[in-house]
């Protein structure tokens, strides 16, 4: 059920800048906010003023010229746009590429702040690209204006969003201003919050519902630095986390469990409790077989079933201390039942799948399922439909 996030078509020669707008299939004001999505284009002269036009129609040459006169960025002959809903926000690229930036029906919307990163994690699912995308800030600010204000959660991810520096602060301020009811979740390696002034400025925005999710992969500096492939990263992240804590920005610790990190899970839990007891949430995440995890598979892969003892010890430790945590990206059939109520359906809908045998599983609807990418080379040997234990299922439903 992984979802389509892009489509493409043909563009007009005058179309030279990325155009962003909210999808509408009916004429709607204000036009500069909307991308009109129509199967066939009617009277062209009536289209002036829209942020963009998407159509399945293969426009004849004179109709192309007429459209060009309106100045409306147009992608025509689009190869399918049924995945676009009214209220979605799209970017139309001059090459004819139509990218979904925001989907109104999804709970997993994120603003991709940048492709750059200052770490190079062994298991990065979205490897960074060293491109200069600093000018995308206007696109980000525009996106925030077009997002539906009733959106419950918006992520800010990358790459490493803090590389935007002050522009990241602008994004957060803007969200506070026009999306006050939307909780904001920034995924950051936290290293730049080593600079107390940056953490303080983020805190001073006083966003009503902000959390920064920061990965910490070990209680030992050299192990963490190895995994993120950056000397000094552990120190910067630890100071960064403390700075965020000091300036009142809620933090989440994110921990990806794989062969290199699973042995000291309990030690890490203890380290977090002793040094980062202010953490609002701790996420224990299964490995996603994407990006760098693929070439590094032999070094990283471990059947999740084989680290359940360590996971159980770490989570019991935290639970007994009132720390708030969740288990992400794990299938219920691999996890001991006493941990089921900590498991969340965490995999973003556009990359979430189930196996055919899951159809007969009693707890399928409570289970987070799989990363689409894991179906190839990231399956536990212990995947088996659950056929007993209606009680737990009910507990999960509650």
């Amino acid at each position, binding site marked *: 059920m992984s979802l389509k996030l892009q489509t493409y078509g043909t563009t007009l020669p005058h179309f030279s800048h990325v155009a962003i707008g909210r999808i509408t299939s009916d004429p709607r004001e204000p036009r500069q906010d909307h991308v009109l999505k129509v199967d066939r284009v009617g009277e062209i002269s009536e289209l002036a003023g829209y942020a963009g036009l998407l159509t399945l129609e293969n426009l004849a040459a004179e109709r192309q010229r007429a459209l060009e006169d309106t100045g409306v960025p147009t992608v025509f002959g689009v190869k399918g746009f049924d995945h676009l809903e009214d209220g979605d926000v799209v970017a139309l690229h001059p090459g004819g590429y139509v990218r979904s930036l925001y989907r109104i029906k999804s709970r997993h919307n994120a603003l991709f702040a940048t492709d750059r990163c200052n770490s190079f994690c062994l298991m990065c699912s979205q490897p960074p690209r060293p491109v200069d995308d600093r000018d995308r800030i206007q696109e980000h600010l525009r996106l925030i204006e077009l997002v539906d204000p009733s959106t419950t959660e918006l992520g800010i991810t990358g790459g490493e969003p803090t590389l935007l520096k002050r522009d990241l602060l602008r994004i957060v301020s803007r969200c506070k201003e026009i999306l006050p009811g939307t909780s904001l979740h920034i995924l950051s390696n936290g290293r730049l919050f080593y600079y107390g002034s940056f953490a303080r400025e983020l805190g001073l925005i006083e966003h009503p519902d902000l959390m920064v999710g920061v990965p910490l992969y070990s209680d030992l500096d050299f192990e963490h630095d190895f995994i993120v492939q950056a000397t000094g990263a*552990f120190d910067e992240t630890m100071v960064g986390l403390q700075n965020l804590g000091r300036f009142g920005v809620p933090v989440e610790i994110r921990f990806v469990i794989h062969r290199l990190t699973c042995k000291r899970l309990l030690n890490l839990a203890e380290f977090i409790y002793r040094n980062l007891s202010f953490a609002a949430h701790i996420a224990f995440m299964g490995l996603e077989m994407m990006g760098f995890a693929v070439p590094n598979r*032999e070094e990283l892969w471990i059947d999740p079933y084989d680290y359940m003892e360590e996971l159980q010890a770490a989570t019991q430790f935290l639970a*007994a201390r009132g720390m708030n945590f969740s288990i992400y990206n794990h299938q219920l059939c691999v996890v001991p039942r006493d941990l089921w109520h900590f498991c969340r359906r965490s995999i973003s809908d556009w990359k979430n799948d189930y196996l055919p045998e899951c159809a007969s599983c009693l707890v399928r609807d409570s289970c987070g399922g799989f990363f689409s990418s894991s179906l190839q080379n990231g399956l536990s040997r212990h995947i088996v439909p659950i056929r007993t234990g209606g009680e737990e299922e009910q507990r999960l439903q509650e």
Partner: protein
Amino acid sequence: MPLGNRFFGEKHYVPATDGYSFLPFRFMRWSETELLLVNDVGDFVFLPLDRFKSFIGKTLTRGEVCYRDLKAKHFLLDTPSNVPIDLLATKYRTKKSFLHGFVKLHLFVVTLRCEHSCSYCQVSRVGESRSRFDMSAETARRAVELMFRSPARALKVEFQGGEPLLHFERIRQIVELVESGKQERHVEFVISTNLVPLNDEILSFCRSHSILLSTSLDGPEMIHNANRHRKGNDSYALVLQNLARAREALGKDRVSAVMTTTRLSLEHPREIVDEYARLGFDSIFLRAISPYGYAVRTGEALRYETEQFVAFYKEALDRIIEINRSGTYLVETYAQILLSKILTPFANGYVDLQSPSGAGIGVVAYNYDGDVYASDESRMLAEMGDRSFRLGNVHEHSYKEIFGGVVSLALVASSILESLPGCADCAFLPYCGGDPVFHHRTQGDVVGHRPTSAFCAKNMAIIRHLFELLRSGDPFVRNLLTSWATGVLAEMAEEDVCL
């Protein structure tokens, strides 16, 4: 299988040299084969003797699990980075945060009158005239004024006696003064009472001002009545009757009880614990025999009594664990305080186990006559004729004179364990406290002599016992003690009970 060629191996991130230096820690021999290491913030590690020697000899290698544990817990430093020291500093600041805000616990002795004549009390004045031993309205007003000079954002006001309810008029005045003057402060009220003078008016006032009641219960009827003399020998029956009434009016969790251990109590640990469980209390505080109000015992006698108390304590604690195992949640408060110091990164506000001691900086007692004392024990001493820890008087002295005076400063200087002979090198230091008033009373010296100190002997034995329980391998006990420390009624612990 090596990593892709764009990646470096772990060796690349490990310091080139193998050396390390020590971060501050203390240690003690635990057994023939093991040592306990504790750092300044209460993190601890047990090491086998040979690993300890290797650690001390700086020959431990990075590949060893204990090396990694010692590094992660900040016992050793193997990088030029300042960050481990900064993290340690943050933990230290957290552990010592009981110092923030200065005096938080304010005791008001509203009267010395009492209708009990308990064996262990030298304070109460039975049947004395009203005016002589009651706090005046003006004294109360000045004491409250003084209290508000404390920078603490959260204050606890505790009414003591005598029997404070015999002078309820003064309690009412103080509560109202505090309520109207507290501004942004959070204030909690507690009345320490034998519950005998309780009436509907008092209960309704307590309800509308969210006042907690703390009563005295020494155990089953035989022990309680023997300890707590009263004409008619009916103290126990009155406590039970009024306890029910107070719980009815205020809610079960609004009434707690404390016990005082006497020589008679020492013979009945299980009966005392069972009495608390039977009456539905969710905590019991097994307090050592107080040297206030007794003839002072020293040397052998005191040591013997301490040994007896420790035996009593262990047996009572065993009983408490049994009761929990059978499904009734009951906390032992002294263990809870120590365990929170051992198992959590947080500070504990119990004034008798702090370094420096809480006397005069965490707690203060305003006596009925306006004299200000460094603690409840200090004013008890004064009633026995020893006014060593009188900080001043609300009518004669300023805030600065009272709280910044020589008595206050001497108490602090003599209770910083980190600088006291016998304490400075003790592995248990981060879990323990200084008690200068106790040592003054029992040893005639505020610093005191640890090898003969009953306070030291008691805490050494109890802390050691708690570690032994934690390491006993019984997951129920470990989960239970952890839940006391963290205040989390862990689902895990509950599940263990179910299984």
